């Protein structure tokens, strides 16, 4: 049985320079005693200025985190975050809220582990409860081949100080008694990669926490503001055309998911991204019975139980390119069958709803971050099915890129030019259905 290793505490760089205030136990008591609680709105709305130093397209987790770290770490507060819908209405509100760092490549492990570190300290930094429950993460192996990949991942992880280990079916049964680890199923469970620091987070709270903190730093959050064009001159970005008017700016960051290709088309940047929906579903709430997050790549399914008691299921991305977010019956049928193969005891549970979110898939299952051929136009895209767990580190590194003008070491391997130089960062073994 593995033991939970002590993780390194927050370093100096993790500590915020100023605390985000306003929410406290005293405030809760004060507001609770009033007949009508007088909470202020968590963030304000502003008129669109005709000039910003930095314009971030996409008001989801990545866009808001970038704005927050620009303001808090680099003192750049003349920032606008634009979203055609509402904050966190895209991938940030549709993912299955899992965080982990047990990736396959050294680049991927270093990157996602930094993100997990930031998540561990985020509630304190933002003064907002993000409900991070580090309940452990199990990736099941149903074949010798996948057991070999698990072993490989475990060794790569350990070398980099990430708590990760291959465990046998008896240990799996101890961690998750509801799982069928017998040799009865068509694909029996042979072992699992166990990653104790992994867990689930309330994804909306992360969005709201970043939004509120950015707003306190003076960042303008513009909801319902669609970008319809990007102006360039002499290979440089000069402004952004929106549904509410034009903004002049020298720096634009594309932090969209699902629509990133449409934004890139506005400046003529071509990428390998193919957009496809990923479907997920949630059941009625029941008493807590499932502690770790359970993932099975062979069965294309992952399951976790939320703090409310609902089971959240996710699948792999739909097998062809689409911008449609409609759910399908064959998906929910297949998903239910696979879940029952893992946990036969759930046969009486009812699915409450299903939904889909758009995933921008890249050929190597790694994101695209950094500058492009157009000066001042940066991308933080191609987040496939792993954008939520990387939100904080993506924001931190994009902010560093904008402040320094060159890609920081942590995201250098993820540049757009890797596809033409052939230096791909192959994460398929750890990223596909590995949530």
């Amino acid at each position: 049985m593995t033991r939970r290793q002590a993780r390194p505490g927050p370093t100096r760089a993790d500590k915020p320079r100023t605390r985000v205030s306003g929410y406290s136990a005293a405030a809760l008591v004060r507001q609770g005693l009033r007949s009508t609680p007088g909470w202020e709105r968590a963030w304000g709305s502003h008129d669109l200025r005709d000039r910003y130093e930095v314009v971030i397209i996409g008001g989801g987790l990545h866009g808001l985190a970038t704005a927050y770290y620009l303001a808090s770490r680099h003192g750049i507060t003349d920032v606008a975050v634009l979203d055609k819908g509402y904050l966190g209405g895209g991938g940030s509100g549709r993912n299955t809220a899992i965080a982990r760092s047990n990736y396959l490549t050294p680049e991927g492990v270093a990157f996602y582990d930094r993100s997990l570190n930031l998540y561990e300290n985020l509630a304190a930094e933002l003064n907002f409860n993000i409900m991070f429950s580090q309940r452990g993460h199990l990736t099941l192996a149903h074949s010798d081949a996948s057991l070999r990949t698990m072993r490989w991942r475990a060794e790569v992880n350990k070398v980099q100080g990430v708590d990760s280990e291959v465990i046998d079916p008896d240990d799996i049964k101890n961690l998750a008694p509801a799982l069928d680890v017998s040799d009865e199923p068509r694909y029996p469970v042979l072992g699992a990669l166990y990653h104790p620091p992994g867990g689930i987070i309330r994804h909306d709270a992360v969005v709201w926490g970043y939004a509120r903190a950015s707003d306190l730093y003076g960042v303008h959050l513009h909801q319902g503001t669609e970008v319809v064009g990007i102006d360039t001159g002499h290979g440089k970005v000069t402004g952004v055309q929106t549904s509410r008017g034009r903004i002049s700016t020298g720096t634009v960051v594309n932090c969209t998911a699902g629509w990133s290709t449409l934004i890139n088309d506005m400046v003529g940047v071509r990428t390998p991204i193919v957009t496809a929906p990923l479907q997920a579903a949630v059941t009625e709430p029941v008493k807590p019975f499932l502690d770790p997050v359970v993932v099975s790549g062979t069965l294309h399914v992952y399951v976790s139980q939320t703090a409310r008691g609902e089971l959240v299921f996710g699948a792999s991305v739909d097998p062809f390119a689409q911008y449609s977010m409609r759910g399908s019956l064959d998906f929910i049928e297949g998903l239910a069958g696979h879940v029952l193969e893992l946990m036969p005891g759930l046969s009486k549970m009812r699915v409450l709803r299903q939904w889909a979110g758009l995933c921008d898939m890249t050929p190597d299952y790694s994101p695209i971050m950094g500058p492009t051929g157009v000066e001042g136009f940066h991308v933080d895209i191609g987040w496939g099915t792993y954008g939520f767990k990387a939100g904080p580190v993506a924001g931190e590194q994009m902010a560093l890129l904008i402040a320094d003008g060159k890609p920081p070491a942590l995201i250098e391997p993820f540049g757009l030019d890797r596809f033409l130089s052939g230096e791909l960062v192959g994460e398929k073994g750890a990223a596909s259905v590995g949530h």
Partner: protein
Amino acid sequence: MIVLPCPWCGPRNVTEFHSLGEVVDRPDPRTATRSEWRTYLYLRNNPAGRVHERWFHRAGCRRFFDAERDTRDNTVFSTWRLGREETGTGVEA
């Protein structure tokens, strides 16, 4: 459920097919530079709208064909056999 008309077998469930993605011009491998070849391998237009793509009838006749589809709502405009100019839903043998 999305129905895709195979030019040989007629309308079938999309779960019978395997998508090979949008059709991109293949440069001559003998003369292409590395960057031309990688552009062909990786870069895609990924349009939100009409796309010309290739499909394989995996659980059917196991033949390839081309289709024109709208990626926003999965309307299939036409499917046709490779190497033929004719378009249509082609249910004839």
